[in-house]
Structures are given as structure tokens and as C-alpha cells.
């Protein structure tokens, strides 16, 4: 037997899932789509059941691919019973989707979540009345505290076995008349939806269902057009709006019958937005919170990385000592293998883990949408939207989570621009290059100058890209979730999913890339590599030996500094490079091609085409920025 969880964003559905699923859950895609779901096993009354966490959607209208897939999945034989999670503190909201759920006519149990929250807001919900209205069991619960989960799953188990169907929602008499005529006309038409639902979808103008029906029974088109026309005349509104307001009307009616609003207790959390979104103090807190977040991540990372790297260095030395000739092919490849492994460890463990845990925390507390609210106006000046600020902020730590976080942007254009720009944000690794080369030899003021120049170039690129790719999105529409103290389990499992993705998909490629480069190096291809990069290094006035460190820098950005010493034959850069070359090199390294780990994540998140576009774009920008920096540096020195 399989149970599906459905609910609107922020209803606590994922919290419920995490409470029962543990870490053995697996993600999958609906075939042929990027819409993902998560599945796990749960033991109920001695039986092992599958539990599927479907993507959170606000409705089942089928207006986007996620909703369409959810409908298809729910009505397929794969699911025996659906648990519809509702936020008891915002019942009329969630009930509009429940009405759509009831239309589908599949066995359902209602999980009335966040009863504590409702209580705090002085809301009393008449559970028995709701049960009678929808014709399905209603289980009050508090998922975050693990309360009510057992009875919920036991009830779902019984409903699934007995295939008990809920009541069909009944709409106004005129609508019902059209529906029964349509159902009659549709006789013999096959669909994954029940006949009544097909009629409803046709009436509200669902194009996909219409195409499916017409391919089987073309004569329906004429009748449907007549119904829609007369409905429009009767109600003075388009049919789709009529059906929608019928649903909302019914949801509101249900809500009115079951909710008793008592006195609302004003809590600390209600006042929090007055401070955190204050026109002036809001920004002060924004800076403080983000600064604190970064300090914490760096502090933790800085604590873990050196001993970890030291361990790998020792391992490397020990392994090399096993060979009589450590410049042979096998020892060289072994070293590269270890470097690939340690590269992953050095990126994943020290910085990415605290980063993702912290990010998950900020997300679950409900602060990130507030950041978007505060920054929307400023980002619009760059031709972007408030939400795009999140990847930028993250990029300063590491570009990998920055790219992952572009998922919060719905729009493909926004995702591309934000991803491209966040790869130019100087991450911790590039900080090492800027500091090791410019700050160390030429002073911190010039290093700061490079940072400011970087931000300027990002802003300029944003402006240009947003002109090139026109903005079709209408602007910000964003729900601000209630501030909540997240459960440790929810934050941990969110971070775990993201880390796992990196470990499983990006890390192996990093290791392979590292080994491949060492093979190239062993066969002394470096001369040819330098020649390959020569046009670029010549243009920027750099010695030809920078070719190899630049190519290896793609693997990990720090390598472009470490290997520069090897390539030029001296770790004292003042001896081998002049100040103009140092600045030009540092600027070029900051902008050029994202590191391999970032590229892999871009490929995974946005596709191969966008990865190549971003590689091309950043190379172009790096060259232009390098030339500007070179000209500028020639004036000062």
C-alpha cells in the first residue's frame, strides 16, 4: 500500500514526512519531468507502507507541470490513500485545495496540523463538523512535536484498505446543471480523471484535458462552447473564474462552519516583523544577521579545514614514500586521486556543511523571504528581483550552494542570470588568491579595490544581462511564512539532502577531473597547455607559464595560486611577477570559468547548455575585466 502526502507550502507536510521517514528516504522524478518527489517506508500495524512526499503546491489547477504531475499521480493506481495536510491556523486557505482534492474522488484523510499554532491564535476547529462536511476522517495533530502521527497513519491505513471515498463537493445549482449535461455528453470518453472531474476541468477551460477529450469525441467541442458562453452570460465572468470562486466559496463556507475565532493572543512573533522589516532598522538587522551567519560559517570551517587537510597531506607524503621514484606515473596519479578526494572533503565538510545547516535554519525560521522583501527595490534597479539576492549572499562562501539556492526562483530567466552572476561572486577560495597575491604583496587597499571592482562588474553584468534577456515576470508575489523555531530534525534532513547531492554527483567528477589533469601533466602536456592559453596570457601581459595554473585553477580556485609558484619556479611572487601582472592575474582568476564543482552543479540544476553559456560569459568578462585592471594598474604603477 502507498500513502501520498499532499499540502500547500508551509503547512508542515515536510515536517510530517521527516518525522516518519528518517534518512532512508529516496528522491525520484516523475518520468520525463524535473518534478521530484520523495519516497520512504513506514511500518503501520505490522505492514510496511510506502509514503510519498509530493511537491507542495497551492492548488491542483494543473496550471504548472508540478500540479499536473501531482494530479496524474494521485489518480493513478500507484496511490491507495492521500493524506491532505492542512494548517489549522489558516484553514480557509488550505481548504480550497482540499475541495480540489475531493473533486478527484480518491480515498483521503485530513491531517489537521499545527493545532498548537491555531490555539495560540485563538482558533477552535470543530473536528467532527469538518469530518461530516468532507466525508473523510480528520486527525488533529502537531507534526513538529510528533503528536497525532500514529493515529493519522493508522487511520490512513484503514481508509486505504477499505478504499473509502470522500464526499464530492457540490457547487451552485446552475453549475451542477451544466456539469450533469456535460457528463452525459462525455459518455464513452476515457481519462485518468473521473467523469465529473473531466466535466469540471472542461468547463473551466483546461486545455490539456480538452485536447484529450476532443481526440476521442470531437463533437463535445461545440456543446462545451455553448455551455461556456451561456455561463459567461449568466454570471458575467469567465467560466474559469466562476469555477474558481465556486471552490473558494465552498472552502470559505466549510471554514466558517468549523472555525470558532476566540481572542487572539498577540505574541512576540507578531511584533517581530515590525522590527525586522522596519524601513531603517530592518536593513541594519539584515546586515548583522548575514554578517553573523558568515562569521559563524568561516569560524567553523576554519576550525575543521586545516587539521583535515593536514591529515591528507600526511597521507600523501606517506603514500609517496612507498614508491622509490615518486615522479612515476602511478604515484603521480595516486597523489591526484587523493587531491581529488581531499578537495571534496575540504569543500564539503568544513564550509558546505555548516553553510547548508545555517541556510536551512534561516529558511525554516522564515527569514529568507523577508530578505527578498527588503531587497526587492534595490534588486529591481539591477533588473532583477528580491529573491535573487539569496544566491549572491551564499556565493561569498562557496558558489556551489549559491547555484543550488537558485531553485527558489521560479523563473528560468531569473535562475540563469542569478546563477551566472553568483559564479562571479568571490568565494572563499578566490579570497585566498586575492589575499595571497594582492593583499600580501601590494597591500590590503588594493585587495579591497579588487573586491569593489568585482561588485561593480557584477552589477554592470546584471544590468546588461537583464537588458539582453527581457523580464517577463510580473514582479514579486511571495508568501511570508510565520516565524517558527525549526525542528533540528527538519534542518538536519534538509542539509543532509543537499550535502548528499554534492557528495554523490559532484564529488566523483571532481576526483576524475583531478586524475585526468595529472595524467596530462605526467605526459608533459603542460607546454602545449601553455601554448593553448598563450593568446589570452599574451593579451593580458602575463608570462606564458600561467597557462597551467589557470587550467588547474578550474579544478579548485586555490590551485591557480599554489600552482603559479610551481609554474614560475618561485613562491616569492615579487621576484617573478610585476605589480601590474599580479593585479591582472588576480582579477582574471576572480572572474574566469567557475570551478569544476560549481560547473557540475550548474549542469545539474540548469542544464548543459546554460553551463556552457555561463563558462563562455565568465571567460569573456574575465578577459575584459583583466584588460581594464591591467590598464588601470599601469596607470598607478
Amino acid at each position, binding site marked *: 500500500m502507498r500513502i501520498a502526502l499532499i499540502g500547500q507550502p508551509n503547512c508542515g507536510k515536510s515536517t510530517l514526512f521527516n518525522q516518519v521517514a528518517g534518512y532512508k528516504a529516496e528522491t525520484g522524478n516523475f518520468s520525463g519531468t524535473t518534478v521530484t518527489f520523495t519516497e520512504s517506508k513506514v511500518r503501520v500495524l505490522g505492514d510496511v507502507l510506502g509514503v510519498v512526499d509530493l511537491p507542495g503546491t*497551492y*492548488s491542483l*489547477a494543473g*496550471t504548472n507541470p508540478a500540479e499536473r504531475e501531482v494530479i496524474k499521480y494521485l489518480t493513478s493506481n500507484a496511490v491507495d490513500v492521500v493524506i491532505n495536510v492542512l494548517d489549522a*491556523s*489558516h484553514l*480557509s*486557505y488550505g481548504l480550497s485545495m482540499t475541495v480540489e482534492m475531493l473533486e478527484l474522488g480518491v480515498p483521503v484523510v485530513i491531517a489537521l496540523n499545527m493545532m498548537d499554532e491555531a490555539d495560540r*491564535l485563538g482558533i477552535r476547529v470543530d473536528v467532527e463538523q469538518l469530518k461530516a462536511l468532507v466525508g473523510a476522517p480528520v486527525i488533529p495533530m502537531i507534526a513538529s512535536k510528533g503528536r497525532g502521527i500514529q493515529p493519522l497513519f493508522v487511520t490512513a491505513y484503514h481508509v486505504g484498505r477499505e478504499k473509502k471515498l470522500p464526499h464530492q463537493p457540490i457547487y451552485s445549482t446552475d453549475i451542477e446543471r451544466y456539469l450533469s449535461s456535460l457528463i452525459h455528453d462525455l459518455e464513452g470518453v476515457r481519462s485518468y480523471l473521473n467523469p465529473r472531474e473531466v466535466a469540471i476541468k472542461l468547463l473551466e477551460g483546461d486545455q490539456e484535458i480538452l485536447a484529450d477529450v476532443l481526440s476521442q469525441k470531437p463533437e463535445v467541442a461545440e456543446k462545451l462552447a455553448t455551455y461556456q458562453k451561456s455561463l459567461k452570460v449568466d454570471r458575467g465572468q469567465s467560466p*474559469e473564474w466562476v469555477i*474558481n*470562486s465556486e471552490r*473558494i466559496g465552498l472552502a470559505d463556507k466549510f471554514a466558517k462552519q468549523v472555525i470558532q475565532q476566540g481572542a487572539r493572543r498577540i505574541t512576540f512573533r507578531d511584533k517581530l*516583523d515590525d522590527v525586522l*522589516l522596519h*524601513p*531603517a532598522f530592518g536593513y541594519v538587522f539584515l546586515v548583522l544577521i548575514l554578517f553573523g551567519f558568515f562569521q559563524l560559517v568561516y569560524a567553523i570551517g576554519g576550525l575543521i579545514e586545516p587539521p583535515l587537510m593536514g591529515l591528507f597531506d600526511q597521507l600523501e607524503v606517506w603514500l609517496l614514500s612507498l614508491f622509490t621514484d615518486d615522479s612515476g606515473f602511478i604515484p603521480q596519479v595516486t597523489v591526484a586521486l587523493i587531491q581529488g578526494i581531499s578537495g571534496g572533503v575540504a569543500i564539503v565538510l568544513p564550509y558546505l556543511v555548516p553553510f547548508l545547516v545555517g541556510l536551512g535554519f534561516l529558511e525554516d525560521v522564515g527569514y529568507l*523571504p523577508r530578505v*527578498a*522583501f*527588503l531587497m*526587492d*527595490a*534595490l534588486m*529591481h534597479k539591477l533588473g532583477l*528581483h*528580491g529573491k535573487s539576492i539569496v544566491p549572491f549572499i551564499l556565493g561569498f562562501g562557496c558558489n556551489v550552494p549559491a547555484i543550488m539556492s537558485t531553485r527558489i526562483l521560479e523563473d528560468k530567466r531569473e535562475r540563469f542570470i542569478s546563477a551566472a552572476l553568483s559564479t562571479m561572486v568571490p568565494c572563499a577560495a578566490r579570497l585566498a588568491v586575492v589575499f595571497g597575491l594582492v593583499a600580501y604583496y601590494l597591500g590590503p587597499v588594493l585587495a579591497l579595490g579588487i573586491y569593489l571592482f568585482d561588485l561593480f562588474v557584477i552589477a554592470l553584468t546584471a544590468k546588461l544581462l537583464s537588458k539582453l534577456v527581457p523580464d517577463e515576470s*510580473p*514582479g*514579486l*508575489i*511571495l*508568501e*511570508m511564512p*510565520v516565524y517558527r523555531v525549526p525542528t533540528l530534525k527538519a534542518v538536519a534532513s534538509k542539509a543532509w539532502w543537499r550535502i548528499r547531492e554534492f557528495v554523490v554527483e559532484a564529488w566523483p567528477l571532481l576526483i576524475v577531473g583531478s586524475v585526468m589533469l595529472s595524467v596530462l601533466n605526467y605526459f608533459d602536456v603542460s607546454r602545449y597547455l601553455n601554448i593553448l592559453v598563450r593568446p589570452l596570457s599574451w593579451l593580458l601581459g602575463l608570462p606564458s607559464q600561467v597557462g597551467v595554473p589557470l587550467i588547474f585553477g578550474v579544478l579548485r580556485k586555490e590551485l591557480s595560486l599554489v600552482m603559479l609558484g610551481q609554474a614560475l619556479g618561485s613562491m616569492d611572487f615579487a621576484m617573478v611577477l610585476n605589480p601590474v601582472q599580479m593585479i591582472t592575474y588576480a582579477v582574471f582568476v576572480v572572474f574566469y570559468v567557475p570551478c569544476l564543482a560549481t560547473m557540475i552543479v550548474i549542469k545539474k540544476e540548469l542544464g548543459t547548455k546554460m553551463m556552457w553559456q555561463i563558462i563562455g560569459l565568465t571567460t569573456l568578462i574575465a578577459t575584459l575585466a583583466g584588460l581594464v585592471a591591467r590598464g588601470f594598474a599601469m596607470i598607478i604603477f
Partner: protein
Amino acid sequence: MNLLDVPKGKSVRIVDFLGGKSVFYKLVQLGVSPGRVVKVLRYAPMGGPLMLDVEGRSVALGRRIAGRIQVEVVK
């Protein structure tokens, strides 16, 4: 009168939305639908979005969208 004409702290009833279908759907999903009474909680500075209270939930809307939402004073 549209939503942008409403001062902070005042409640109004939504009458109509002048704009595309997809945006309309998104608004409806968040409860910003004709007939609902909403309260303007705050405006972000520098022409930023505004924040509404919709049945106890907070929803942020960019000014371009807010300007297309027709409202009336609640008696």
C-alpha cells in the same frame, strides 16, 4: 482605487484584478481574490513591495502587481 492608494494599516476589499491569467491564479492561490478583505501591513522603502495581511497570513506583492488590484473601502 487600487491597492497602492491604501495607506499602511488600513483594510480594503478586493474588487478586481486587471492583468494576466497566470498572475491572477497565483494571487488566488495566496488568497488575494476578489471579495476578500485585506489589510496593508507595510510598504518596503524605495519603491519596494508591500505586505498584506490575508486572513492572518502575510503576503508580499510587488508594486506593479499591487497597482493592478482594484479595491474598495470596507464599510
